[in-house]
């Protein structure tokens, strides 16, 4: 039986930090192609700070942990992914505040609240070549899996797989947000770094929250 608690969410964030660290060079390279070549560095800085905050803190519940992580991202990432991931984690935490026995449904609703925060912040639309292009299929797949009776790990696996497909689809898109949008048509043919790090986040979740 999977549980969403301080321990497992800490595990998720730690494993995401590891994944970011492992892929930092790749993320920066993707960003170098269409942006300002800092996504890997920025995310790595932010997630290392999150790990440090987890190590040094004592959290009453999942919501407190996620809020701390979100605020840490906001103040340490530096690039646009700081407010975006920060918003996601803050809203995710906010949606889980006071929740006991976090079911797959509750967690899905919280994920959606987090992503809604990201949209409100970044004003991205589907097809703008952003992390949103990975989030939408991921949430849909998650909800579909839950609706068909899947448990949390299975739903997260479905979400991660769908995010990966969404991430792949960004390659063909023309960027309409962020620094990459200055490149216009030339941004097509490159995978979006934000969609890539979002996929890693869900893959870490699928591995850690099981």
């Amino acid at each position: 039986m999977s549980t969403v608690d301080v321990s497992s969410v800490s595990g998720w964030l730690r494993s995401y930090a590891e994944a970011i660290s492992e892929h930092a060079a790749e993320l920066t390279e993707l960003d170098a192609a269409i942006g300002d070549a800092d996504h890997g560095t920025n995310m790595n800085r932010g997630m290392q700070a999150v790990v440090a905050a987890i190590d040094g803190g004592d959290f009453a519940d999942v919501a407190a942990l996620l809020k701390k992580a979100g605020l840490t991202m906001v103040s340490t990432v530096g690039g646009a992914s700081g407010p975006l991931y920060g918003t996601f984690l803050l809203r995710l935490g906010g949606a889980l505040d006071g929740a006991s026995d976090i079911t797959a449904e509750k967690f899905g609703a919280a994920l959606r609240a987090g992503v809604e925060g990201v949209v409100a912040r970044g004003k991205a639309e589907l097809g703008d070549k952003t992390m949103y292009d990975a989030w939408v299929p991921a949430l849909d797949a998650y909800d579909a899996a839950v609706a068909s009776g899947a448990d949390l790990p299975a739903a997260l696996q479905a979400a991660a797989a769908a995010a990966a497909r969404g991430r792949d689809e960004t390659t063909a898109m023309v960027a309409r947000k962020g620094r990459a949008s200055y490149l216009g048509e030339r941004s097509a043919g490159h995978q979006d770094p934000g969609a890539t790090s979002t996929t890693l986040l869900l893959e870490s979740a699928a591995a850690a929250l099981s």
Partner: protein
Amino acid sequence: MISIVVVSHSRALAEAAVALAGEMITGDERPRVAVAAGLDESTFGTNAAAVAEAITEVDTPDGVLVLLDLGSAILSAEMALEFVEPDVAGRVRLSSAPLVEGLVAAVVLASTGADLDAVTEEAESGLAAKRFHLGSAATVSETGADGTPDAPADEDSAVAAAATAEVTVSNAHGLHARPAAKVVALVRGFDAHVTLTNLDTGRGPVNAGSLSAVATLNARSGNRLRVEASGDQADEAVHALEELAARGFDDQPAAGSAAPRSERAAGSGLDLAMGPALVRKTDVDTSAYQTAEPETESRRSREAVATVRSRLHDLERRTSEESGAQAGAIFTAQVQLLDDPDITGPVDAEIAAGISAVEAWSRQLDEVAARFEGLADAYQRERAADVRSVRAALLRALTGKPDEDPDATGAPVILVVDELDAATAASIDATAVAGVVTVARGTTGHGVIVAASRGIPLLTGVGDDAAGVRTGQVVAFDARTDAFLPEVSEADQRRFADLVAERSRERIEVVEAARGPALTGDGHRVPVLANVASLADADSARANGAEGSGLVRTEVLFGDRAEAPTVEEQTETFLALAKAMGGAPLTIRTWDVGGDKPLPFLPMPREANPFLGARGIRAFRRQPRLLYDQLTAICRAARETPIRVMFPMVSNAGEVATAVAQLRHAAAIDAVLVSGERSTGFYASAETGSQAAAEAGSAVPEGLDVGIMVEVPAAALTIETLAEGLDFVSVGTNDLTQYTMAADRGNDAVAELADPLSPAVLRLIDRVCRRAPDGVEVAVCGDLASQPRAVPLLLGLGVRELSCTPPKVPDVKAAVRGTDLADARALAAEVLTAGEPAEIRELL
């Protein structure tokens, strides 16, 4: 006094900007300025928490102006507003002003005690002085903000009184290429320098006279644009642009398009013709042209361009009316050549340097044509003919040689041309021209397509025999035997007249026979329809007696577009198809993309296995907008002509339910839009539409039949549930065979496996016919329906409608007439017990 916060990626940059601005103030009264920049002294980045702290630090009851650089600075500042107290957030203003100029302006004005609104406005016009000085645009508005130092009006300066306006992009698809071209065209008509700025994205100002520049505005529906103009006609230009914007940049069908269409005589529809030749050379004789002073040459050039432009617009309108927007677009592209700065720039420069307008235009357009000819893509090569056509038209206008349109009073002529361009093909008066002969090869050009769609007899690639023909000489040709007679004796003339009469009778008989309904020997009527992907197909289908279209391939119909066709264009094209088919029912298949069928305007991800990937309806799970637009166009067309809609590549009931829900949604929203505003796109009105959908009971338009294609074994095996509530299903035998046999018919190594007469495939078709819910008609629109030999078997299995390639309609009808349904059933039963395709072929 208000306070100011500077948000930047770089602490050094922010601190230096603050110091620079501080130098402007001499007194003690100055606003408090806080900096939230960089992650530390040397690391670039922004931090929402730090921005919130900075705001809180300098917050005053008079308010806080936040100036920012770019990217995450904006996101961080917006986020910071959520971190500060709500009452504080309420008096914080995030400014789109340029950081350095805005900060300087803001600090200066704030120090006078001006309020937040005034300082914000001042900061945002912080670029005005720089722009004015550099002469890139006049920007100081006549009603400048309080405290704006009046720009010195230099009386000798070329920059006259500026005019500005703000307009809103109201058309559904934003300022994409076509409406942008309208803006460019309009602006070029005035003696003014006009710039546009997208106030919502901050893009600009850009030169409104440059298409590429306007395109970079990325102006979407709802965006506000600032128009700024200088020059003698600045006011007029701005006013005209306001009017154009108010009309949604004319990005909708013209108001008059619903007016009765002009009817023109069609060609004979035969494949032969005889008559006196009218030789028209693409090469215009310019030997008598007298080169004048550059000013005169420049005027002649402008006049010639205007003449040709007006002629092309006329052809565009006529062709669009007759053959649909797609055919008309050929001429839109030609008009663009006249306006392309890459062409007109060098032409103007050469004329200014003393070269004649004739030579300048010839040289430039020859170069462009040569570039097109050098391209690998066949479609692009065809564009060379368009360029030569425009070149000839310009030279005729310059040399005062009008287009020698044949005179309708004499005997119909045979037009002899080097190559048939679309303009000529479209402008031919079919009562005055009996046929067209081309010297050069090419059977796929725009001109050939247009001529064929008009039923004008045509023989291409005659070569030297035609090259030697002179005007007035009687010639004849028979495309059926590929024969050309450059000289016609009296005996030939009689023989040819007989042949023409015989072919006319033959054609009438064929058409009559094909037009009649197809009844089986025992009296069951089987509709025989045609698969179409163009207007030419529709013409051919009707001529061959098709009783409608069982498959309109929309992805091919619009496949040569660089941009997605609008709802209006699609509606118009569907109606043009229906008209070409005499109002017979059309079965419109929604975009069938993916696999081997990419669309330029629908980027698809690279898939390891595209045939098992996001094909057909699956492609729109993530990007539903294109599908909604198409469904809207289908609903609109369905109000005027019989239409069926068909969804491709469905494999489970959920997909059918989703597609039908999307159709209902599109229908409901459109029903609302019909009575109200049409220009808003689907998404813009989705919210009101959803309510409307609920109120309207989510119905599809009256008479719009809904069906699916059966191409996947899963669909055939679950047809009972899949087709529940539908009107029809249509079996796509090609894909059904590929997916059933797991064999690609294009792969020689396994092609023999991909046989639609395989027992497995036939059993699936049998199952679909037996198990489809009551009232659901089963059609076949795949290749098998184009094989007359398979007709008895399909009818025996229970198929009740066939849709084949247009030329096969008469043969398929003949096959239906030769079949008795009772015998066919026995045949089908026997075939279903056979083991091998070879055995089955034997039985047929």
